[in-house]
């Protein structure tokens, strides 16, 4: 197993309430939560693998498969919803073959639906690799995604 991951397990040893930060930092490190890592976390925290899996699957943040190269989050908060977030999904699917909740076959993009990015005054918004793009139309989004694709 990865040395950095071992160090992580050591760092949180015996700390109260360490399970979620451990899962978060493991995901930061490895990009997702492989089964093996969850078993190690269970062993390190003295809990059963089923318990750790139960915690991990409860929260939306955790992934159990590797991500695409780029991460695209389409905001579906209330403001984005009334300003046409659904239309953005349509553009992603019809123009780029990107489906919500999935990673493209070339592993270029993972598209996620998120509840609210808190940039409601700029609705509708998407976040690509941590950067928020606001006041979008289908056309604008298509241009941005094409740009990201080409830069890759």
């Amino acid at each position: 197993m990865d040395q950095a991951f071992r160090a992580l397990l050591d760092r949180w040893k015996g700390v109260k309430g360490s399970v979620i930060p451990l899962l978060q930092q493991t995901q930061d490190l490895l990009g997702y939560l492989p089964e093996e890592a969850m078993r190690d976390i269970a062993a390190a925290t003295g809990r059963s693998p089923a318990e750790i899996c139960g915690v991990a699957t409860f929260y939306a943040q955790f992934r159990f498969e590797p991500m695409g190269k780029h991460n695209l989050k389409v905001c579906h908060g209330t403001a984005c919803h009334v300003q046409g977030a659904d239309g953005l999904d349509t553009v992603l699917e019809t123009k780029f073959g990107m489906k919500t909740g999935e990673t493209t076959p070339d592993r270029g993009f993972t598209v996620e639906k998120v509840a609210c990015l808190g940039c409601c005054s700029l609705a509708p918004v998407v976040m690509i690799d941590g950067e928020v793009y606001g006041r979008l139309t289908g056309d604008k989004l298509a241009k941005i995604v094409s740009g990201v694709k080409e830069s890759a």
Partner: protein
Amino acid sequence: MKAEIAVGMSSCGIAAGARVVLETLKADVAAKALPWTVVSTGCSGACHREPLVEIRQADGRTFLYGNVDEAGARRITVEHLAGGVPVADLLVPPDYPFLARQKRIVLANCGVIDPESIDEYLARDGYAALRKVLSSMTGDQVIAEITASGLRGRGGAGFSTGMKWTFARKAKGAKKYVICNADEGDPGAFMDRSVLEGDPHAVLEGMLVAAYAIGSDEGYFYVRAEYPLAVKRLGIAIAQATEHGLLGERILGSGFSFAVHVKEGAGAFVCGEETALMASIEGRRGMPRLRPPFPAERGLWDAPSNINNVETYANVPPIIRMGAPAYAAIGTEKSKGTKVFALAGKIARGGMIEVPMGISLRTIVEDIGGGIQGGRAFKAVQMGGPSGGCVPASLADVLIDYDSLTATGAIMGSGGMVVMDESTCMVDVARYFLSFTQSESCGKCTFCRIGTKRMLEALTRITDGRGSDADIPMLEELAAKVRISSLCGLGQTAPNPVLTTLRFFREEYTEHIAEGRCRAKKCKALIRFGVIAETCTGCMLCAKVCPTKAARGERKKVHAIDQATCIKCGLCHEACRFAAISIETGRH
């Protein structure tokens, strides 16, 4: 005074392009060797004018610029900073109604100070409240002051903060915790994010005062994972406060010690519920439990715990500084002080606002928000997110206080305010919220788990044009049962969006069911796109944007839309420059 250029660098400012503006200003000021300092601030709230730049001249005069882009930044350096002439067309006037009707207590520093500088916070009476309570007040006196101020929980439920602190102080136990709920999960709400990003020390100071009052030496911030900038700035604030002896052992030489941790949420709406939040800190699935025992008695790791929301804590330092009578003079008899709202949706001027309690909803929408975008008709305001409801335009004169809003069927909520116009379908809004609560239900209570699912199915049938007359009574029956059979606020309030829309917009439900008509022209199954022959110029733009090639035609000839392949995405309607795309609804 120092000559400063302040650039709003909150999440929304950055999304609107503030980073380029900041870099351009820094580079230009350096290149021209101008005697100005470029600083970053948090969000001033005028999100619709982002990116925002404030010029603070050495003579004390200030100029606020809005919608600044790279070219605008260049003009500001050349014309204003070097030339001494303000750039008139980018100026936000000082009497701008968006700002003029507000009363800023919680947001007093947001957009004004650099949130990453404790010195700027200290220069504006920062930590004066903490000094005051540590040097001259007992815990009981602090609680008496907060109780007298009339402060009620800003997370939405509106419980008396003083009373909550009293319970925690009186609870037996050597170890007590103080928790700040920053798991702002309501879609359409960003008040807590803006306060944490814009003035993190104020929240920390409020928490310290609470800890001193109830006798706690350890606390947690539970922050939503989607708010990385808030987490970062909170971390900086904690480190700075520790360096200044305002956090840690024997704070300011007193007998009071306090340690604080930041926990990032992992994406579960239900964790905004206090018992679920504590389960999450403990590293478990975030599922609520039965209350009593309330957290004040048995909370985090079974120790007495006090949990308040970000905005509630941010109100504490100003209350201690100005005194309870001055604070209680603001607002109405039962709702004191101010409330921060995130104003969004179909509003002309969206952003984050702080208004005195007792102001009318209409004043917020029309005077502060400037009414509806594009001159369409104002239909409703959704308040309180998935737990709240829609206040129709006909009731817009309702006053902003806990009790008046509850009487409409909506709630004060945490502060999300999404404005809707005639192009918003109210059945679709109800379906939207139900789909949210349904997927966020933790599954513990049967009615919340399955009842919301059945309600969502009924709403989906109606918006798909497959609804029947039996659906409305079933929705009402299930709504009542979900409400009374759920343990926590998520389930108890999940039916609210359905109940309020049924109460005020019932005709929209029946139109969907009986006539296959969606008056807002929003529900895809009930609308058809077409081309208006008289106005179509044959420019081919619709054909270009259409993702399924349903919109087609030859240059300079009237186009047509093929109904079989049209997916009703509306891109042609959005793109057409001649309003030549029609949308029809209703069975024919």
